[in-house]
């Protein structure tokens, strides 16, 4: 798998199609695992989608006392293993982005797994396949690089040059699951 989830928050129109799609995904038990929220409701109606970053070194797994959060060989960070999770919610508080959700009744932690049954076969996750404004995209690594470059160029056109200290500011957010091998 060499595909990237590419997020552009500004493009979000707040239709919540991604959440509806997420509920339909296999093993999601009709509960959405992604978020669409207002940036600042008093200022504007701008919304943004939020998904799990599938961290390489996930804080959620590191703070889990039961060692219940597993990472697949592709690099997807899965929801807690149901039999191990003791329901402490450390993962929710440890995650820098506040992603894992918890269901108290069934004692289940659930989080975005990039629709593992789909992405494992290089099919776009539910949210990315329905997003009408391309705020969430599931694209090739090369395409992602191109988009990043474009964004950087946008800044250059405006007369600002990246420097050694701040060059990362010119790179848009991307994340996802990819391996260096071109498989």
């Amino acid at each position: 798998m060499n595909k990237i989830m590419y997020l552009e928050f500004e493009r979000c129109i707040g239709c919540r199609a991604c959440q509806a799609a997420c509920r339909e995904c296999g093993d999601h038990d009709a509960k959405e695992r992604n978020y669409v929220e207002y940036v600042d409701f008093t200022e504007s109606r701008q919304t943004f989608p939020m998904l799990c970053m599938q961290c390489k070194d996930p804080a959620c797994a590191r703070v889990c006392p039961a060692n219940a959060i597993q990472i697949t060989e592709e690099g997807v960070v899965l929801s807690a293993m149901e039999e191990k999770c003791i329901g402490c919610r450390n993962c929710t508080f440890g995650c820098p982005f506040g992603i894992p959700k918890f269901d108290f009744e069934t004692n289940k932690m659930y989080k975005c797994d990039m629709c593992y049954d789909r992405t494992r076969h290089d099919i776009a996750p539910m949210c990315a396949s329905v997003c009408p404004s391309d705020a969430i995209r599931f694209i090739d690594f090369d395409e992602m690089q191109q988009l990043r470059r474009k964004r950087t160029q946008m800044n250059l056109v405006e007369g600002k040059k990246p420097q050694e200290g701040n060059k990362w500011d010119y790179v848009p957010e991307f994340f996802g699951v990819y391996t260096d091998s071109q498989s």
Partner: protein
Amino acid sequence: MYKFEKSFYSKTSMYSFGVVLILFFSMWVSTSKFVHIDMALLGYAISSAIFAIGLTIRMSFWMWRKATNRVAKRSVNNLFNKERLKRNSKAIVITFIDNIVLQKFIFQRSLYRGIQHFMISWGCIISFGITFGLTFGWMRFDLIDPETYQIIVFNVPTMKMAAHGLFAEIVYNGLNIGAIMVLIGAAMALYRRITNYDVKVTQRFEFDILPLLILLAVTVTGLILTVLYTFLDGWMHHYMSLIHQVTVIVMLVYFPFGKLFHVPIRPLATAVPMSYQEVVKVDTKACKSCGQPYSNEDQIADVQAILKSQNFDLQLSDGTYLSDYCTGCRRRMRAMKQMNLEAPKGNPYGPVSTNNGIHISGFSKKRSEDFYGIDQDSKEETENEPVSR
């Protein structure tokens, strides 16, 4: 003490040694110096000892994890705090009854899964209890007169029962009852694993299906054994008991290293009502930004300590940590930072800022270029404990 510890290869081997010693001693006591030992069960005894060693090794490694260690330590400290006596006992009793005896949360997932798990777990508890009890000689039956048996527990005579009473029948057939329960439960589980598309998303054969097959092998051979000596006069009995013994040994050796290991770690669930969230769904710590309660002081302290001990840099420029904010605020912070919306100080005409002040490998200002050097990377790896993969 230190010297004693040093005489072992590792702490884990010291603990294992202790466990085996205790087992041996308990055997010695309850068989009155090995007089009443049941030699037919020797194979089981040895594999049970291996099982105990495996369990000790896994438990000590699990406890060594920083997160587990921290949570367990706090719980143990709280356990011996007199002021918390009421809270502790309530937490332990409720967790024990709800989570372990009744397994309410699994019935919430679905009735089918509830029954399936209830059958497997109680069947296993009954059978394990009897097997270990008999192999280590913790429990035995003595015929005191032709009509009465006496149950001897740890070499202490306890109750008597009529040799052909109803109670005696239940005791003799304990293993069969346990086996039938496991058979029903494991068959239900296997059926679900094979037919349900949802579970197939993350299921792995060696982790989710193999233990079911092992349990089925043990119960089926065990039940065949019963059938052989009750209805067929023990025909082929010898071979069958050998096969059964092999399956049991495989299960005992497998137990600490596979899915079944979730059983011994379950008691940690008491840590939640004991040290963290006392009443379900009632939070006490307020978010630094929006003021909504979202967690608990002790828990956030633990989370921060665990993250710090593993070199996660999640501190913001004003000295607060990301875990001081509720999950909603944390998500908003990330989006605002990224869209360069952090008024009033942010420069609205600046470049599109994608750096949210949070360390993500490759995107942090705080890491210099040489961090990505190969040697450095591999050093990081060895310093951190491995995540399960």
